[in-house]
Structure formats: structure tokens, C-alpha cells
């Protein structure tokens, strides 16, 4: 329950991101602000302050003010408000995680049910495809696809997705995790197919479509739903890793992963730029995992007694 509360809190805070940036912090977190100033305890100071140590070259962004009205977590090396970017980044991270989990679970459920129900050639082809994608290290497959698609966008006939679009990481992440959900669904469908109620439906002349939607789907749906929170957590972590490698969400848009990447060069001078988004990722992923455990226990009360993972 705490986990659900934390998730709702994070969701609400990222929803108010534009309101915060526009009306409280009065900042645009997507344009660089190299010559900006802000007021700290009555004095006007530049956002990017000249270095005083060493040779005195270059600038260091101001650190956290711990004041919600401006630069709560300081600025990044473009002089942008890190806290505002953190809220906007959370939008993208959660959006990509959730939407790719929906696509992934949906596609996997359909393919798994088709393979398990029809068997034969369809099963053989789909299972081999799952095998191949399964054998491919997830990050390497995602990285390969991202590298290729980010430079040129995706052109599939009439469908054109631009290189900077959020849909590229969404589709890529959804695709690489499909076998992880599809395989269990296929196994479940195969065992369902032998059960009396399906045999009875086949015997009474119901169409394949009707059996799949009315008999098989309601029985496979619970296990897909159990997978869902875990997939959101997985996908969010993968998105952050891709963005950290600068092949996920593209600038000037932000996600928690890109902000960690921004904070890399400032790690020893302004550690909060990299720390804050990581902490957000950890809190969100922990909540999703605990929620996943809870959902599983709700659908299968015996699992808790059995001590399933």
C-alpha cells in the first residue's frame, strides 16, 4: 500500500512539472541559460559562476539552494534548473516505461496465445523468433537498434518516426522484452488447450477467434497483469540505461537517465545533478517491484505461502 502511495505521489509530482517550471520556478528547463541570474538571500548571483580555484578558467553551475522557488537542486552545465528537469524527466521515464510495458505485454500476450493455441508451424516460427531474441543480450539488442534508428529515424512504408521521437525508445524497449512475457503465456495456453472447458468449446463448434477471446484470454490475463508492474520497472531501468549512454531520449528533452548523464561531468563538484534522478529511479523501481509482489499475491494467494519470488 505504501508502494502504491509512493507511486501516486511521484506521478502527481511529474504531472505538475509544467506548472512548477512556469509558475513557481519561472524557468524554461529546455533552453540553455548560460547568462542567467538568480537571487539568493537578497543578492543577485549568476547561475554559472566563474571558477575561483586553480587557473580560474571555466564556470561551475550553482549548487542546490534547497529553496523550491528557484534552483532547488542547483543548475546543470547549461544553467538549467535541475529540479524542473527532474520533474519533466520523470514524465518521460514513466511514460516510456509504462507505454512500452503496455505494448510489450500486449504483443507478447497475443503472440504467446497464438503460438500456444495453434501449435504446429505457427508455434515453431514464433518460438524460434523468441529463442533468437532471447539469446541476444537485452542491452546489446537495444543498443544496436537505437544506434541505427536514432541516426535516421524509422521508415516503414507510410510510417515515419523521426530520430528524436520518444516512440523509438518505446518500441525498441518493448520489442526486446517480448519473449520474457510471451514464453510463459505460450506455456500456459498450451496447458489450457488440453483442459475440458476448451475441448468442450471446440467440440461445440466455437470459432478459434471466439475460443481465444472468450476462453483463453480471461485465463491468461491474470499472469500478464502480474508481469505488468515488473515490466514497467524493467523498461524504465532499460530506458535510463539507454539514455545514460545517450542513445535513448534525445536532448533537449530529458529523462532521469539523461540527467544522470548530464551530471556525470559535475559528479565531484555538483553531485546532486546525478544523485537526484538516480534516487528517483530507485524509489520508483522499488515501489513497482513491491507492487508487483502485491499484485501476484492478490491473484494467487497461495504464492505467498509457497514463497514464490
Amino acid at each position, binding site marked *: 500500500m505504501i508502494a502504491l502511495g509512493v507511486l501516486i505521489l511521484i506521478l502527481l509530482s511529474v504531472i505538475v512539472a509544467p506548472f512548477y517550471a512556469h509558475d513557481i520556478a519561472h524557468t524554461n528547463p529546455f533552453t540553455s541559460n548560460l547568462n542567467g541570474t538568480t537571487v539568493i538571500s537578497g543578492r543577485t548571483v549568476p547561475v554559472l559562476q566563474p571558477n575561483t580555484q586553480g587557473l580560474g578558467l571555466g564556470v561551475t553551475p550553482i549548487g542546490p539552494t534547497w529553496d523550491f522557488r528557484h534552483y532547488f537542486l542547483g543548475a546543470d552545465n547549461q544553467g538549467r534548473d535541475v529540479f524542473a528537469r527532474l520533474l519533466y524527466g520523470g514524465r518521460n521515464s514513466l511514460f516510456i516505461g509504462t507505454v512500452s510495458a503496455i505494448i510489450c505485454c500486449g504483443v507478447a500476450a497475443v503472440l504467446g496465445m497464438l503460438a500456444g493455441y495453434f501449435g504446429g508451424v505457427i508455434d515453431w516460427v514464433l518460438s524460434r523468433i523468441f529463442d*533468437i531474441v532471447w539469446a*541476444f*543480450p537485452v*542491452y*546489446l539488442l537495444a*543498443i544496436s537498434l537505437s544506434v541505427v534508428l536514432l541516426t535516421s529515424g524509422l521508415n516503414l512504408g507510410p510510417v515515419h518516426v523521426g530520430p528524436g521521437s520518444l516512440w523509438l525508445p518505446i518500441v525498441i524497449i518493448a520489442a526486446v522484452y517480448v519473449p520474457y512475457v510471451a514464453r510463459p503465456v505460450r506455456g500456459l495456453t498450451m496447458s489450457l488447450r488440453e483442459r475440458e472447458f476448451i475441448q468442450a468449446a471446440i467440440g461445440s463448434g466455437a470459432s478459434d477467434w471466439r475460443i481465444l477471446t472468450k476462453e483463453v484470454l480471461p485465463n491468461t490475463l491474470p499472469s500478464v497483469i502480474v508481469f505488468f508492474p515488473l515490466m514497467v520497472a524493467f523498461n524504465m531501468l532499460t530506458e535510463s540505461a539507454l539514455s545514460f549512454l545517450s542513445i535513448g531520449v534525445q536532448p533537449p528533452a530529458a529523462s532521469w537517465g539523461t540527467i544522470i548523464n548530464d551530471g556525470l561531468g559535475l559528479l565531484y563538484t555538483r553531485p546532486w545533478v546525478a544523485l537526484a534522478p538516480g534516487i528517483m529511479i530507485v524509489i520508483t523501481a*522499488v515501489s513497482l517491484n513491491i507492487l508487483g509482489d502485491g499484485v501476484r499475491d492478490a491473484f494467487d494467494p497461495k504464492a505467498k505461502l509457497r*514463497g514464490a519470488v
Partner: protein
Amino acid sequence: MLGFIIRRLISAILVMFSISVLVFLIFFATPGVDPAARIAGRSASPAIIAQVRHAFGLDRPLPIRWALMMDHLFIKQDLSSYVNIGSRVVPQITQAAPVTLSLVAGAAVIWMVIGVTGGVIAAANRGKFIDPVIMFIGIAAVSVPAYWLGEVVNLITQGGLHHSIFAWVPPSGYVPITQSPGQWALHLIMPWLTLAALYAGIYARVLRAELVNALNEDYVRTARAKGLSERRILIRHALRCSLIPIVSLFGLDFGALIGGAALLTEVVFGLPGVGLLTYTSLQNLDLPVIMGAVMYGAFFVVLANAVVDIAYAFLDPRVRIA
């Protein structure tokens, strides 16, 4: 048994073949992607692009280009980089592989020890206070992005505390074990711990679940009826059965890590392994190197899958028939 091994190896070779085709298609035949334009640079004229296309053999039919690529990569082993003309791909990978192996092997020892200990302690104390604590630590370890954890470790050991309690931590980098085993371990200890955290969390959770299941089995009841101590039942009876899924999981994870899943840890700690090689070639879009590294990674994953299946069939004869 022999028949099973042969069938399994043939299917591994088929999967390898499919992966090589898939990797090739991703990099050279994705709709709208033109490697020639990439090699020629951003503002190249169409004539230059055509010239580059011909010079790199990119105007030939796809199956021939695939065959040529595989020939250069595996048989002649003289595939060279598109960016640093003249630098060979295969020696770069064989140079980087020991670094990755050092990182993963050390981390594997740590995560097995921590994961198994944690899982056993949690299962032995199920329902008591310590059990949910260990399981929560497990969830937290699974939820931390590995690269971010690496950054935090760097910040702690190389930042303000570097001059006091973490003075013994060397700057990031790699020292070969042949040069100085002590320095090798010292340079790798933080990367090992960082990489091990995630897997220790997973293994502790899986093992606890397996142990709790095993403790409800009939053979455990028999052992209890014989009057064996609870500790002996847990370690000698339940743990032995519960370790089988752990061992197969270990094979898969180890293969995947050697194959490139350790990329982020290598990047964060500046270890010149296969992951860092992939990462640097990503940055300048050096297709042959990326492709070589990805193929190498997939090779290890497929190999690990095959070894795990064969080991499983050896332990559990029922699997051999399917």
C-alpha cells in the same frame, strides 16, 4: 545423452547463424539507413557517397555482403574498422576479453557467496524479522541502475573521502593480472562489488523461494522424522535441491555478462573490456566494431545456454527426451 548433446549443439549453431543474419540486417538493411552515407560524413556529395558505397562493397547484393562480412570476421579475421582505417576488429576484441572476464568472474564469486548466504538466512528465519529485511534489501539491489550505483561508488571512493578512509582505492582503470595480481584485485574490487549487488539481490530472492518450497516437500518431513537437526535439514537436504535452478540461472547470467551485459559497469569504471569497446565504437558509429562485439557477445550467450541445458540434462535425465 550423446544424442541430446548433438541436437542441442546443432540448435545452438542455428541460433548463432540467425543472430549473425539479424545483426547484419539491423546494421546494414534497416529501411532508411545508409551506411555509405554515414562513412562518407554529414555533408558528402552524392558522387562521394556512391564512391564510398562501391569502395566498401556496399553496392553488392545483401547475401553476398553478409557472406563477405562473416568471412572477414570469422575466417580471415581481418575485418577492419571504418573509422580508424587499418585497425583490426578481432584483435581489439581478443585484447578486451580478459578484462571483461576478470570483472565478471570476480563479481560472480561475490554475488554467489552473498546471494546464497542471504537466501539461506532468509529461508531459515522465514516469518521472523530478518527475513523481510533481507528480501527488501534484495528488492532494492534489483532496483538500482548499475551505472548509477557505479557513479555513487566513484563519488564516495574518489571524492571527498578519497583522502581519508578510501585512500586505498586506486583511480579507475585496469592492471592485467599477469603484471601484478595485487593491483589487479585492488583496481577491480569496487567494480566487482557494484556488479555483484544486482545479482546477489536476484539470487537471494530466488533461492529463498526455492528453499521455502523445498522445506514443504516430503523428503524434508522424512528427514525431520528421523530427528535430524533443522540446520542439517536446511543445508544438507533442502539446499542441495534448491541450488539446481540457481546453477542454471548462474550459467545464463554469466554468459550474458561476458557477452556484454557488463557494458555499463565497464563504462562507469573505465575498464577497457568488450563493453567499453562497444561503447566507444557506438560513439563514432564504427559499424564493424559494434557488429564484431555484438556477435562475440551473442556467441557467449548461446554457448552458455547450450552448456546450461546439457548440464541440466546430465543432472535430470527427464529433460533429455524433450
